[in-house]
């Protein structure tokens, strides 16, 4: 799952020169993920994983890093 998230984020939303060196806990918001990027990312995740991410949980701590995103998605996949 993380690979697909990585590919989408670094191809479409955030430009870093070497995505391989971007750690799973590195800060995506600092790297330039903005509110419009978050919106596209959520649309991508919902289509790709068939989950609905609750509106009330869209907040910086859930989208800050690749690990945070994965945790957030997994929490809703189980339901």
């Amino acid at each position: 799952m993380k690979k697909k998230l990585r590919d989408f984020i670094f191809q479409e939303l955030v430009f870093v020169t070497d995505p391989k060196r971007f750690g799973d806990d590195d800060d995506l918001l600092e790297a330039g993920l903005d509110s419009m990027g978050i919106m596209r990312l959520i649309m991508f995740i919902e289509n790709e994983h068939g989950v609905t991410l609750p509106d009330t949980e869209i907040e910086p701590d859930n989208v800050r890093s690749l690990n945070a995103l994965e945790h957030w998605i997994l929490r809703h996949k189980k339901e």
Partner: protein
Amino acid sequence: MPLLTAFNRQCQTTPDTIAFIDGDRQLSYRQAGQLACRLGACLMHGQVPRPRVIIALERGIDAAIAILAALNAGACYIPLDLKNPPNRLNYIIADADAQTIIGKGRRPDWLEAPVPWLDIGHPPLAENAGPPAITADDAPAAILYTSGSTGMPKGVVLSHRAMRNFADWAAVTFKISTTDTIASLAPFHFDLSVFDLFSSLSVGATVNFVPSNLTLSPSRLTAWLAQHRISIFYTVPSLLSFIALKGNLPTPPLPHLKTVLFAGEVFPARQLQTLCGLLPATNFYNLYGPTETNVCCYWPVERERLQSGHPIPIGHPACGAILQIDGTTGELIVHSANNLSGYWQQGKLRPALTTDNGYRTGDKVSLNGQGEYCYHGRLDRMLKCSGHRVEPAEIETVILQHPEVLSCAVVGITDSTSGQRPAAAIVLKPDATLEQIVKPVKQQLPAYMHPCKFIALGSMPCLANGKTDYGALQQLLENS
């Protein structure tokens, strides 16, 4: 009549009405008026030679008071985007040639120019705060810096007459009154803030500053709008699209929100339709106009005409503007009392209008069957990125400063949510790598100007006449 005359009158007629709310802090019109006069008096001494005051404060009560103080002192205000990198801020500060910078706390280390720094937390004790300065109608009230096609930021100079003409038109057209609460989200260097501040304050409405962290969380933003009984909200379509998608609107949805205004970029009809469906009792308006003319055209959204894939019109002339379409190019030319006085560059006002005071927008428009104006994009290379105006030349200038770069070109590539995003093609010196360029370039540009893609090319694609083939580059960057 100076821009603040109406506000100063409200301080007398509705002194106990709340003027500003900023989190836990609020000020009545009386308190706001007193603070603005007291701070204004600190500015008057040095006012005569350079009647310009730079505002180095984040959107909020302090910044609003600083702006009112500058205007009361007969100076114009120049709001900075503090998210800009220091090199861009220092360029603007030097270019503005101001008497004072109003900020908070001690003078920041990045500040190069020897301009006096006034800490709004500890203003010097002013002598008697006199009456507001008498200011001529054509004196500058604000200089709003925007991206420049020559590669450097340029200041759009707006007179008291121009800003008052817009503020009054909006207050009447959108029926703002002392019972309204306006949500202010646009930073003060954006022209949307002219509405938030001056239309509201001229009629005794309340301005409530939206906490900035809410833009990352649409459901918390809508909860905030509900809780604070916001009645009017002026913002950019991308944020409204986010609300339409994930706003988690309560039932009944935002009963106090009577009017939503949007501007700055094209609102795709499908997303607007969704939002209109979610907010059945709210009136929507599409406002159009570059910073140079503020709103010159507007369209009250007719819900039944919204059709996915059909761009919405920009509508009818606003603010008493007379609009004209260039017969050859289709360019929109605006004659309006809102029009800028000129561009501020290197301490001087430079003309920007045609001989008969029209402003050539660079936007291609046409009239539809209903006599409404419709927007068809730019005639030049300017980009619109999440509501920000971006001149590719400004990004190219920064990239070209790097010794490893032989040539470069920046074009816009389409993005389903931000409209356009800049992308850069670079021809490097042998042995140089993109890695050497990307980080320093990003450090020198505000985030909304960061190219979303960089590619290295062996040579720039050219047209037969030797000029850069931007069309080919765009295809290359869209598909890479």
